[in-house]
């Protein structure tokens, strides 16, 4: 019967496919947050209310910044997608527990404004927003976010000096006495949550198991750190620390699993992911050893963030195309 006579039934029209795997962006973000929860508990149990304060202020200011900026930019407010919450949590994780509240607020605001929303919001950021915020803090208030200074007021059952500061100041001999297992279990000075190396690793493996991130970036990151540190160590083991030390201290774990794997600031092609991760590891060790800055993780990731669109040009050949050209 002609279409004019057809009783339209208001059926839904959409393009194929008609089913979806069921995951969503906010689901991925909340999985990230769940993966960080063990370290949150660890941080609160170790540093008490100070850690809780840092985490709460950080999350609150990140989400408030997101809300205000999205209102200002007349964008749909999407603070419930979990990204701002994750950014706040990550910011809290890499700051020492003693930082003043205003520093966290400034860092989070800068992260969300310049790091994320200026680039176009979700999916647009070329750099990891939190690291961009951290860099401005590092420029402005280096003493406040210094891990060694931050731990002075706590009674801890281990050295209150940041292992990488020890390495920079006193050389490899000074850190050779440290128990790596102890460091790995989280008995080291560092960021509020980032120093719980084992728990961060477990969280990262959970993310990989859930399929939220690919194994390629974190494992090639660790491989990059190990390989580069090995080269120096084998050349002069008295002067340079061994690769295992470089892996267990100073944010490498959280950098590899939670910062380098940020969706929009890391490559999407598989080969590119491997190169990206390895490059992060390489520059982490190079920054640590060759620059006068003891910590290299965040600068290395930011540096590779610049390169990632270029790396993403490395793409596999299309199988059908090879077939026709042959």
């Amino acid at each position, binding site marked *: 019967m002609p*279409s004019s006579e057809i009783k339209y*039934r208001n059926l839904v029209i*959409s393009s*194929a*496919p008609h089913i979806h795997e069921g995951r969503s962006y906010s689901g991925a973000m909340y999985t990230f947050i769940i993966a960080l929860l063990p370290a949150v508990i660890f941080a609160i149990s170790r540093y008490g209310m100070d850690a809780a304060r840092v985490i709460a202020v950080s999350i609150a200011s990140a989400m408030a910044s997101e809300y205000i900026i999205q209102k200002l930019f007349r964008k749909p407010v999407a603070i419930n997608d979990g990204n701002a919450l994750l950014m706040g949590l990550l910011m809290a994780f890499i700051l020492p527990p003693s930082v003043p509240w205003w520093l966290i607020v400034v860092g989070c605001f800068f992260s969300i404004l310049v790091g994320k929303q200026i680039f176009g919001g979700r999916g647009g950021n070329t750099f990891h927003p939190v690291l961009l915020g951290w860099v401005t803090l590092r420029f402005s208030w280096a003493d406040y976010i210094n891990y060694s200074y931050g731990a002075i007021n706590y009674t801890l059952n281990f050295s209150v000096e940041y292992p990488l500061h020890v390495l920079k100041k006193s050389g490899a001999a000074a850190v050779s006495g440290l128990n790596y297992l102890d460091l790995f279990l989280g008995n080291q000075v560092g960021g509020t949550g980032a120093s719980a190396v084992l728990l961060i690793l477990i969280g990262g493996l959970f993310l990989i198991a859930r399929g939220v991130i690919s194994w390629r970036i974190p494992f090639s990151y660790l491989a990059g750190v190990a390989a580069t540190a090995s080269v120096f160590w084998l050349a002069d083991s008295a002067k340079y620390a061994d690769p295992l030390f470089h892996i267990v201290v100073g944010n490498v774990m959280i950098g590899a699993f939670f910062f380098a794997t940020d969706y*929009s600031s890391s490559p999407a092609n598989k080969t590119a992911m491997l190169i990206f991760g390895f490059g992060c590891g390489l520059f982490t060790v190079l920054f640590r050893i060759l620059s006068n800055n003891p910590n290299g993780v965040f600068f290395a990731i930011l540096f590779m963030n610049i390169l990632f669109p270029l790396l993403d040009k490395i793409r596999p050949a299309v199988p059908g195309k090879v077939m026709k050209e042959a």
Partner: protein
Amino acid sequence: MDVSLPKQSVLLIKKSANGEGMPALSSGESIKTGGKISDAEGKLLAYSPVTGTVAEIYNLPRVDGDFTAVDVNTSENDVWDENCRGIDNYFDREPGALVSLLCDSGFALDIRKDERPDAVILNCLESDLLVSINRNVLAEYGDTIRRGLRLLKRISGSDIVIIAVPGDLRDFAEKVAVDGSERIAVVDLLKPLYPFGMKEIIPRALSRKGIRRPLVITPEYLNSIIVFLEHGSPPVHKFITLIDRNNVRINMKVRIGTPISHILREGNIKISELDKLVLGGTMRGKSSFHAEFPVTADIDAIMVQDRDAVVTLGNEACVNCGKCIGVCPNKLQPHLLARYSEFSLFERCRDYDIDYCIECGLCAYVCTSRRALVHYIVFAKKELAKMAKEGDHAIESDNIGEGLACHPVK
């Protein structure tokens, strides 16, 4: 399950872009089953699937293009057209003549004299999820298919005949592959995974590698070729899988032209507002805006999706997570293609091999941001085709200064 003949049947004829495809029929004219329907110049457009009188001819837009629809009031006793006669000794005919005969009769067989296929692949996997036509046809019409394979082997001139089946159909496939004491085909057991059943993918899924120019055919199609040669009857039936809102499947044999509403009634499925009616399977089917469309030869399944199960794919920003790259069977970058398409950079789409996208839908299935990736890609393809048709020489000029740009070999 056989679906009864509806009172009124609709014959859909695809319109070509320049407005051709108007059948030389008038209201009140009587047609017979299997009768040729031609346009004014005598070009074959379709075969009539039913016997009856033409009620009305009108335009009918479907999601994938414009069609001419012919409403036919069917009569209950089928009368076959007198021109439908089988071909005696078709097997002994000269291959080239047989191919051109089949092509003139409306069958699409990709056998060219200068470029013979290097293998014949009988694709018994399904073209989409939840569809189960080919396996049933293979099980039911084994003898016909065996004859068909022999014929294809002869007319294609290829020694390699592969029956690609899922593991549980091994026995049926072996029966088809062996003719008396002679083995005419090898059986390749494949995992019944999507999208192995797509004709572009199946040559790569086989255990035999190095097949460059395969002739891929489904059992259903092969069956209809042999029936046409032996009895002269063009395909008037179609096997479809009816999928209801709980994913319960019914396999049906339907007369082409039967309105979907009739099939739904026979299959006891009710459809209400805001449900989705999909012509085809879950991954590649096209949704339809009403249920009066007829079954055509290219519809493998009819799916009714509940309003609560309808998935909304939209245009949230891509977050570059890389999931789509991981699942793309052709190793494309669907996220980039969709982004270029979104911002009208269609030439960049071509640089990223959009022509090799087979629209399997896997990228959109896994998309973290739930973007309608396939929709964007299909849109870009259409725009590119439009540009090529308009004689737009932007492709050549675009190449200058982009030494790295590579275009697929045509």
